């Protein structure tokens, strides 16, 4: 194939990232410029909000559940199983984490582990169990992945408030009175602005580790390559003697694990599970799907997208408090969604793994 075609392919890839990164940067620069030129105007407020350490730390905190769910979604979908049930995994782990901590007793420690961390791991376990159910249904029983994913969401959406009502008499759990807390790294946390990275929830640190680690696993380990091959061309993997089902199970379970971390962190960061309406997860699982599609299945891109949404939310919360600012809160809340729409309309498609959503079987019926 001629070199020009290769260049062109690379160009499309590059232009996608360049559009995103360049767009974000130029918007920021525009605001900075306007903010510096008219410090007392709304742009000045904008700039102050965007450069405030509290916005950064808030954005990091808010991006935790989205990022973890998105990382989970990447592993599952890269392995060929579209996991639309991420929302359900977040819900079930958020609930289990809190109820387990409550049952153990928030003040208790078991073999040196504080109850809240037992809850944290229990939340992860519940999400892994749910994803195992999902995996069996999709892989063993060849269910339609989208429908099965919706089912996982619906079951979790019903089960968590149901169990909360059975146990507490209402859809919300009681407040544990304790949270995961904050880990502060001395000295580093004193750095202006970026100090927010070193004075954060434990889950934020986990996220900052999980993102590069996921990238590494996906791109530098044999397992990661098998995952990618299983989603692109499972037959290629099968014919070299790697068990496609096993890789897919692993991918889905891993997605359950990661989403579980996000869900546990979400509820334990607050010390309570809120089960009203769409529960406290409130669409974060779906936003996570958008985030990884947006990030083109790259863990770092997915984190970038999650961080963008969380950042917009954090900025929105602060913008709301600017006095005399007339735009209704609800309209500002639509900004992240509108952004996604506009970018999708401009940049268009993302490349979905070739075999995602398809069942794989060797075609032999008497095996």
């Amino acid at each position, binding site marked *: 194939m001629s070199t020009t075609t290769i260049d062109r392919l690379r160009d499309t890839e590059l232009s996608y990232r360049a559009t995103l990164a360049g767009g974000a940067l130029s918007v920021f620069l525009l605001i900075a410029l306007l903010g510096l030129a008219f410090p007392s105007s709304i742009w000045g407020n904008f700039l102050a909000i965007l450069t405030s350490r509290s916005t950064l730390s808030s954005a990091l905190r808010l991006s935790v559940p989205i990022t973890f769910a998105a990382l989970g979604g990447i592993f599952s979908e890269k392995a060929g199983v579209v996991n639309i049930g991420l929302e359900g995994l977040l819900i079930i782990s958020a609930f289990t984490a809190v109820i387990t901590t409550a049952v153990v007793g928030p003040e208790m420690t078991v073999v040196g582990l504080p109850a809240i961390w037992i809850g944290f791991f229990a939340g992860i376990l519940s999400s892994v169990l749910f994803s195992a159910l999902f995996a069996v249904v999709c892989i063993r029983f060849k269910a339609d992945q989208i429908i*099965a994913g919706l089912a996982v969401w*619906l079951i979790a*959406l019903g089960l968590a408030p*149901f169990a909360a009502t*059975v146990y507490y008499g209402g859809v919300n759990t009681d407040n544990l009175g304790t949270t995961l807390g904050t880990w502060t790294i001395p000295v580093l946390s004193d750095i202006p602005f970026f100090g927010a990275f070193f004075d954060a929830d434990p889950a934020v640190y986990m996220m900052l580790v999980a993102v590069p680690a996921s990238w590494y696993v996906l791109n530098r380990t044999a397992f990661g390559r098998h995952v990618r091959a299983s989603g692109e061309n499972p037959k290629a993997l099968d014919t070299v003697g790697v068990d496609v089902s096993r890789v897919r199970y692993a991918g889905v379970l891993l997605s359950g694990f990661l989403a579980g971390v996000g869900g546990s962190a979400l509820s334990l960061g607050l010390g309570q599970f809120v089960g009203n309406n769409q529960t406290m997860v409130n669409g974060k699982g779906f936003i996570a799907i958008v985030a990884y599609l947006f990030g083109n299945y790259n863990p770092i891109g997915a984190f970038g997208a999650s961080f963008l949404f969380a950042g917009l939310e954090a900025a929105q919360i602060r913008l709301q408090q600017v006095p005399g600012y007339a735009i209704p809160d609800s309209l500002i809340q639509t900004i992240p969604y509108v952004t996604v729409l506009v970018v999708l309309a401009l940049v268009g498609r993302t490349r979905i793994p070739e075999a995602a959503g398809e069942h794989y079987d060797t075609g032999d019926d008497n095996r």
Partner: protein
Amino acid sequence: MSAAENAKAVLRRLTAASATERILISFAALIMAVLVGAVIILVSGRITTCQTAATTLFGTGFCYDPVEVYLVLFNGALGEPFLVNSPGILKPLNPNWNPLNFGFALTLKETTLLIFTGLSVAVSFRAGLFNIGTQGQLILGGLATALFSFFVAPLLPSGLVGGLILIPLAIVVGALVGGLYGAIPGALKAYADANEVITTIMLNFIAAQIAFVLVSEFYGNPDSQVVETTPIPDWATLLPVAFPQGGDFSILALAFGLALVVAVWFLLEQTSFGYDLRTSGEQPEAAEYGGVDAKRTTVTSMFLSGALGGMGGAIWVLMVMGKWQAGVPALGFDGITVSILAGNNPFGVVPAALLFGTLKSGSLAVQFGTGVPKQLVGVLRGLIILFVAMPEFFRMLGSTIDLEPDRETVATDGGRLGGDDE
């Protein structure tokens, strides 16, 4: 086609879901969900505490009795057809049962609304478009209906004549707005190749916020602290006729919904447009080959789907609320489950909507009558969908019971298995 794929095709031929099988699978899914639900009820009956056991199994007392729960659910949804208090599992019929009761009206109300949203989702699914956006289309369609009725009502004579003019117009307005809002992701899909799953999810959020702002800032009811529009005069709404106890159910709306079922079926199965739509949904490449304008069909189907969703919103406003109010129930999402259970078949939507309508209206009675949280029904709904998604599971169950007959003669090509491996 490789031999492996060919073998798969043979397999599929043997197990392809016929209409009968679909119905069987739906029933089996329902039964499985009910059984799993019963286990959940028992388990939660051990977690909660009570002074006296509701039932005793295997020497263990449980606070909730699954049989009672399902009976109460059914009774609540239909308005006490059975005498629950009598002993034994089979309860005698209630001689005083009147089908035109409040509970049944609630069930039919839910059913009616779910028919609209179920149809909306079914149309888009048949066109191969995963429209998650019925909720947003419903919200905006309903709002348009409420505002239109409110502003136009003063210009018309009040009473039956005005209603006859206004109600159809208001529904059309709702359909139009819902349709246009549905056409947005359609156009984004057709012309910008944007994934409709993402865009419709985003548009749902946006619709809810826009509607909220419009009502809270501009068109709110000044007499109310709730974010809602000023109520439409009664003559311009769909009032209950046959059900004296109320329940916000209008038989007219149900009749309209059933008529739409037939209309949608006719459109899908009997017309050229329906053929285009279904072909696009089954196999876009083949549709293009067959002269279907894929982009236009995508936009049109999404418009149609959105219009049905918008009508759902209109009916919600005209039949249930008499106004638009923030916190619109998740009828659009329920429509997805209805459509899935119905196998995206317009006629299937009716029983599926009735089932979910029964569950939903019965859920209130369950919480009321037995103390089991009404979210149980949400779990049941998820379980039904889960089991519907895995026909393989039931085929496997079935094949262990029913030995397959000898299929030596199934080959269609003189026993020649070859595909086109050239």
